């Protein structure tokens, strides 16, 4: 009896993991053959998971409501202060963002903006540390589809695998079958982040490079057509030689989202190459605030010329302070207007002022490489 049962399961295993035919993925085979079995399991287990999650949420909600009421006033004041600070920060960044968009338009770069998301709650896990998946309470009835990206405000979490009418399986970044195209924030190196068998998140298709250092941010590159570009994945935790895949290195990434304690997630159901209407309004508001700040700075400069001179001197000294090893100057003290970006230390063809105006350019002409600024001693 045992032999028959075990042999039957071994054959079933072999059918599920057979090599994919050209043009089909392993997932497609697995889904075709075992979707029904999984659907039955999910249909039996998830109603109870929802029930447990719902009752737990009610208790937590009651308790947190009581706690919130006790600290509402203080929290409100702190939030108002933060909103004011963020408005100033947003205004100062608006101009740089507008410049970035203009450059992207020149390069015909297709940015993908997140336009639609569906919030979902985590109702259960896979129950084993050999499979890093979660179950969420939204499914195809809510517009979800397999391969859609799942994020939290902290960063990327994973993507959807199996989607059922009212439930979906979320494949975490830490699972050994998951993967995402990434780019290192400062070095702009591209790689693929994958989960390992023991639940770590690693980039293991990059060779050793001195420029890759722990602490560097890892962002989605958008090349995988699943995750929109520029979302936070994590921070490089350690870099070590990968003995199994020489000459590549095993770059361990600490995800910014806490993958072991997820309660609510956002499934990205829609992206667009145009800026969403809400974001447009925010940008316009930020630009208006920036303009007001500029005017106020001009008025102050006219009425108090001495302040303007000292501000100019501070501007002149700024490139020296940008040298490696020296601390960055506190720009908020040196200038009364919005914070502006410093001149690039290593200018490239995208740096402002290094390329001739569009009207002077001729088709097919190769632009001269940017000149490195002379170091001031």
């Amino acid at each position, binding site marked *: *009896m045992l032999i028959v049962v075990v042999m039957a399961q071994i054959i079933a295993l072999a059918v599920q993991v057979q090599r994919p035919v050209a043009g089909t993925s392993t997932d497609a085979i697995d889904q075709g053959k075992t979707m029904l079995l999984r659907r039955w399991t999910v249909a*039996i*287990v998830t109603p109870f998971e929802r029930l447990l999650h719902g009752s*737990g949420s009610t208790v937590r909600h009651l308790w947190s409501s009581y706690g919130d009421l006790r600290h509402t006033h203080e929290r409100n004041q702190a939030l108002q202060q933060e909103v004011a600070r963020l408005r100033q920060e947003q205004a100062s960044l608006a101009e740089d963002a507008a410049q970035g968009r203009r450059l992207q338009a020149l390069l015909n770069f297709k940015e993908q903006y997140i336009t639609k998301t569906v919030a979902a709650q985590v109702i259960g896990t896979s129950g084993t540390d050999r499979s890093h998946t979660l179950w969420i309470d939204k499914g195809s009835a809510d517009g979800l589809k397999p391969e859609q990206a799942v994020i939290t405000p902290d960063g990327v979490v994973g993507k959807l695998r199996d989607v059922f009418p009212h439930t979906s399986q979320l494949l975490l970044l830490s699972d*050994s079958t998951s993967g995402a195209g990434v780019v290192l924030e400062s070095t702009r190196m591209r790689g693929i982040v994958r989960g*390992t068998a023991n639940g770590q998140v690693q980039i293991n298709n990059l060779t050793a490079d001195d420029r890759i250092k722990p602490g560097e941010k890892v962002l989605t590159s958008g090349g995988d057509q699943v995750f929109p570009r520029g979302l936070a994945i994590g921070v490089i935790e350690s870099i070590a030689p990968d003995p199994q895949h020489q000459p590549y290195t095993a770059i361990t990434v600490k995800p910014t989202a806490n993958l072991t304690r997820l309660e609510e997630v956002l499934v990205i159901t829609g992206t667009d190459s145009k800026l969403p209407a809400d974001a447009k309004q925010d940008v316009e508001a930020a630009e208006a605030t920036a303009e007001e700040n500029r005017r106020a700075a001009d008025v102050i400069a006219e009425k108090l010329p001495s302040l303007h001179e000292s501000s100019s001197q501070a501007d002149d000294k700024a490139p020296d302070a940008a040298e490696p090893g020296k601390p960055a100057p506190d720009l908020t003290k040196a200038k009364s207007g919005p914070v502006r970006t410093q001149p690039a230390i290593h200018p490239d063809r995208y740096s402002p002022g290094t390329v001739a105006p569009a009207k002077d350019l001729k088709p097919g002409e190769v632009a001269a490489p940017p000149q490195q600024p002379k170091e001031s001693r």
Partner: protein
Amino acid sequence: MAEHSYTSRRELDQYTFHPAVTLLTPLVLVLLQAVLPKVWPRLVILDLPLIGVIFFAIARRNPIAGTLTGTTIGLFQDGLTNLPFGINGIAKSIIGYLAASIGFTVDVENVINRMALNFGFSLLQSGTIYGIMRWLLADPTVRLHPLYELLRALCNTVVAVPLFFLLDRFKVRE
């Protein structure tokens, strides 16, 4: 003259369960296994369905029933993962069969024996799953961490002892 009946030890110690217990206990254990790690992620080290398989197998003392119970619970567990169906199914079929067979030879009411059985079968399951994933599925990234698996076996044993006493209440002598 006193009458002597020829009832074997196997027959004396064989138990059955109410159909509701047979159906609900594995379901509750699989459900808890899926929900508890959400509350406290470290609880993923446990394998409550395995404890259920061992309990039912040694209580029924029927290798066929043990094998089928292990297969059903194992496949059910596989359904909640993204792994192929059969990984837990095969491991738990073997454990169900062995637990039912060992039930004939040892006193399974003894706490020490119960602890030894749970510890041993937990280790056996870890080894079996490693073998399936490493060789049958040819996944070279799978690693066996002996210390972690020992800890898993220990945790399962600690949870199994009170759980066995709780489930003993639902036993019905044949």
